[in-house]
């Protein structure tokens, strides 16, 4: 049992923090909000040069052989100032899947340039009707000769509007919601027949609705085996959940410390409002939940790599539930304690609030994860 960072991890987290403070304060995010891409390719390249995109990938794939905890430490720092570059979709989701399932050519073509920050990726899995059910996939891939033709619509594709290539989940067999029959395809962002609609998230980041109207890809674009993608997809989305916990930790920490600072200096009734016990106790509750979230962020980052899928799922679901229950207490208290100013767009509190809420709603919300937790075989047995 040891939760200390190694020297390399401390150095890396410090370097990311320095980047965040010096090169990417919240004002940079504000400036990029609502622009065509919503993030900056130069900043992305810098992150690639620093090795932050490659850190957790195997050396054979051009990475540094680190663990998911390294991704988490980076994301936590990025979260502090709402860095909008597509770390989660590109590195955690699509990158993870390509590294896990890809053949040498696919890794060279799609993963390697992304790790250097030259390209970015996305994962298209969710559909309008699917909610959080990963098997609820109506997009189809029909074999025709030596290639596949993709038809269907994907929603909330993080970085889908800007990605150079997109990992797409499509059904090669079976009925919608069958666990079998799902396959993954690597589709170019500018593939003929693909329509990308930029959708604005409430957090000021862009996502995409993708329409596949007969997009044809060669058999060399099949990622992994045909028809058996669900397990890998579940794994990837659990990585997304762990990443959401990590990034949100940065924002929750901002919400908390900014609130404490604010109630020390904001005066009403002739004293700092932080002298009112009702607010002090709320602050103590926030403190407790931020700490509890931190523990679960660590748990998620460590256990997402557990080879036993049920152990992994139990940990990830627990962490995601805490993010939405404990995390919610932090974000709603922050807004309440700031008062009216928290509702203005100029105040950063609202930006953090919104981003955390988006991360809570991605990769399974609390209801979904409570339900998944109780459906695991281990739930029947003794207490974990």
């Amino acid at each position, binding site marked *: 049992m040891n939760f200390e960072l190694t020297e390399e991890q401390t150095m890396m987290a410090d370097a990311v923090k320095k980047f965040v403070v010096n090169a990417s304060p919240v004002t940079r995010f504000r400036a990029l909000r609502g622009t065509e891409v919503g993030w900056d390719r130069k900043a992305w390249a810098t992150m690639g040069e620093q090795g932050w995109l490659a850190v957790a990938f195997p050396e054979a794939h051009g990475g540094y052989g680190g663990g998911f905890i390294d991704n988490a430490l980076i994301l936590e720092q990025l979260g502090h100032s709402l860095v909008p570059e597509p770390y989660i979709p590109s590195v955690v989701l699509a990158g993870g899947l390509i590294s896990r399932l890809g053949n040498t050519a696919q890794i060279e073509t799609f993963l390697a340039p992304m790790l250097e920050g030259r390209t970015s990726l996305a994962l298209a899995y969710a559909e309008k009707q699917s909610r959080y059910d990963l098997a609820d996939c109506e997009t189809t891939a029909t074999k025709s000769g030596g290639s596949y033709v993709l038809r269907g619509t994907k929603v909330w594709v993080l970085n889908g509007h800007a990605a150079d290539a997109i990992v797409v989940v499509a059904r090669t067999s079976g009925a919608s919601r069958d666990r079998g029959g799902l396959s993954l395809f690597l589709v170019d962002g500018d593939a003929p027949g693909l329509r990308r609609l930029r959708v604005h998230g409430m957090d000021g980041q862009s996502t995409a609705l993708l329409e596949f109207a007969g997009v044809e890809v060669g058999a060399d674009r099949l990622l992994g085996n045909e028809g058996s993608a669900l397990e890998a997809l579940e794994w990837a989305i659990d990585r997304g959940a762990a990443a959401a916990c990590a990034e949100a930790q940065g924002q929750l920490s901002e919400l908390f410390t900014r609130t404490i600072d604010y109630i020390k200096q904001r005066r009403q009734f002739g004293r700092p409002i932080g002298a009112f016990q009702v607010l002090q106790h709320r602050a103590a509750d926030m403190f407790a939940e931020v700490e509890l979230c931190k523990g679960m962020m660590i748990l998620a980052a460590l256990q997402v790599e557990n080879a036993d899928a049920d152990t992994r799922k139990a940990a990830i679901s627990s962490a995601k539930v805490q993010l939405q229950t404990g995390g919610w207490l932090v974000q709603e208290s922050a807004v309440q304690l700031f008062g009216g100013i928290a509702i203005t767009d100029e105040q950063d509190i609202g930006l953090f609030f919104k981003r955390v809420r988006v991360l809570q709603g991605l990769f399974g919300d609390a209801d979904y994860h409570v339900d998944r937790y109780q459906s695991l075989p281990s739930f029947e047995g003794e*207490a974990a």
Partner: protein
Amino acid sequence: MDMSYTPEQIAFRDEVRAWIAKALPEHLRCKAENGGHFELEEILEWHKILAAKGWAAPHWPQEVGGTGWDVAQRHIFGEELVRANAPTLSPFGLTMVGPLIIQFGTDEQKKRFLPKILSGDEIWCQGYSEPNAGSDLASLQLRADKEGDDYILNGQKTWTTYAQHADWIFVLARTSPTAKPQEGISFLLADIRNTPGIEVKPFLTTGGTPAFSETWFDNARIPQANRVGPENKGWTMAKALLGHERTSIGGVADSARWLGVIRRIARDARMGGKPLMEDAAFRRRLAKIEIRYRTVGMANMRTLAAAQLGHAPGPESSILKIVGTELQQEATELAMDALGHNALGWFDSPTDAMPEYQLWLASNFNYLRAATIYGGSNEIQKNIISKMILGLPQA
């Protein structure tokens, strides 16, 4: 980072587990499993078995009878005790006054008191609270006036758990009425059985057990040699001790036991003709509380891991009393709900009316309401966090 135990720790766990399984008497195990209330003799039976093995006070220094285990080993041992359904030993000697005497006591005091705390031959109780000094403990009024080599004690303590069984009581008493409230307090030890003028009046808790007592002092004379530490410095010492009490009161391991109890109930109890464990709404409630247990458990593990490396308790440790006791209460609330109307009985009913685990549930549910009150109420904990950690201004 690494969440797993080392091979050495796993070997240690297996050794401890095997020993407990052999050493713990079946009637005690059974009673603990059913949440039954232990009589003092039963607790002492287990205490003496542990003492004979040298494991009664793992957290004491080795030269006074501790085990020499590190933080992780102590944690593993504690977990294994709960897992095996061993009775909890009385904390007043072993975790409260013992460590204080070890830290601040004279050599004579150590020789006189520590061996009998360790062996379980002398039972202790804690005389801090008074009718008008609860959370505001520093306003306590028990007077200790000097006369010759003695102190003369006058006043009253209350909520003194198990005073009626105790041989000794440690009290906070006012030795200097003129000083600031915190500064005139001394830490004194009194022979509760043999000192004329000390009277103990037990009364029932809502759990139905006679755990509480009022302890009255009427010109009770105790030697000054029974003062631990300097005169008027009792407050600082007692506060150090309260800090210790707080982390252990979180009771994360006890919550694990409650989750086991709830599952057992839910496999037995019926809902719509099926086991409650198959009811979707119930399963979600159980899942939520178990997730909370994991969440609090993670904070507990981080605290332990930091302590293992010799670091001062981090911020997460100060929240354990609050979130840990809330969790214990939630667990008993869910256990009650799981049993439905069968939860509403009382433990003095005939056992053929209810299985034993049902018998004791209501008592535990009621008694555990105290967990958020004692050891510094959760409101007081929040006051401490907001002032000491968050640095918020005084009202």
